């Protein structure tokens, strides 16, 4: 799997991220790696108010990432058949769409 692009994970427009997975399943790899990226110190330092909650289950359920944005919109990523880079790119496109003004201001 390719490493993520140079753009770091910016969580400015995100309120809450809930990740739940069952570690004994084999389709959890991409979700776990996505979690590792999103909950890293660099990502969390962009927005200290954002909470990252991880739930470990054992009921053979699918791995799911539930993202709640600041304006109330919810994004559900079902990580069973997705790769980490796909999840990350989808998540980042949503973040960028929510917060284009902020990013443009920061770049300038």
């Amino acid at each position, binding site marked *: 799997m390719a490493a993520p692009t140079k753009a770091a994970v910016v969580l400015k427009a995100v309120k809450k991220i809930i990740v739940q997975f069952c*570690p*004994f*399943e*084999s389709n*959890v*790899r991409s979700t*776990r*790696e996505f*979690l*590792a990226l*999103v*909950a*890293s*110190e660099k990502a*969390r330092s962009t927005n200290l108010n954002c909470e*990252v909650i*991880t739930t*470990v289950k*054992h009921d053979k359920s699918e791995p799911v990432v539930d993202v709640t944005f600041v304006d109330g919109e919810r994004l559900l990523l079902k990580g069973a058949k997705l790769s980490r880079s796909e999840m990350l790119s989808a998540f980042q496109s949503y973040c960028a769409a929510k917060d284009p003004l902020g990013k443009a201001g920061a770049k300038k």
Partner: protein
Amino acid sequence: MAATLCGKLLPKQGWLPLIQSVRHGSKAVTRHRKPLHFLKQKLLAVTRYVPPKPVVPKGAYPAEKQQVQKDSDFVLILKRDLKKLFQECKMIAVVHNSNSTVEEMINLKYKLYKHGITVKFFPNQVMRSFLSDSVHSNMAPLIVGPTVLFVSKEPKAKEMLRTLRSSPQMTLLGACIDDTLLSAQGVVNYSKLPSVSVVQGELVSGLTMMTSHTASMLQRHPAHLSALLQQYVKQNSSEEAPKAEEAT
């Protein structure tokens, strides 16, 4: 005009000009890549190495000999450590830490060491290959991504859970306690169990309840005991009488 110019540049027929301007040429050793002389360029282009094309493309047939990669020495040392760990320690927990700063790790290590739990890091590949060879092969799917091992000789689940609750980014995935694989929920349940001595005491008391009851009854005053026995006989006879009536 051409004659006068030719006269100046080539004083004698076929000879190089006496005055050559070297202002624009670069020296032999330059910091940038000096462009090769055209003749040299042509020579290199002509004499370039062209590797022979294989008759069969690379991935067409499977390899004749199975390439068995030998473990490097460092990997062997790590595997030896792991083996010792699994033999000695009763509790091995796998925790996923998505991020933790050095300070948090130090704090966590300190808190856990007070209860006798050590924090260990092992490379995932080594861990997986070791587990697939050993008995605990079902632990292999747990070891994906950034994982840390918490090992301890005594299974102290309650203290471990308490310490983990203080650090939000550590997620307990599962544990192998006394050669039994437990999930996160299983570890929580295990921690709620009373200790072995308490359970043994309860079992012993349950078994000896009847005998202790009898012993206490016999130790009482004999008059009391005879009164009780008479009462018991009366009750039995009264029960048997209606039963006999119902039967007939």
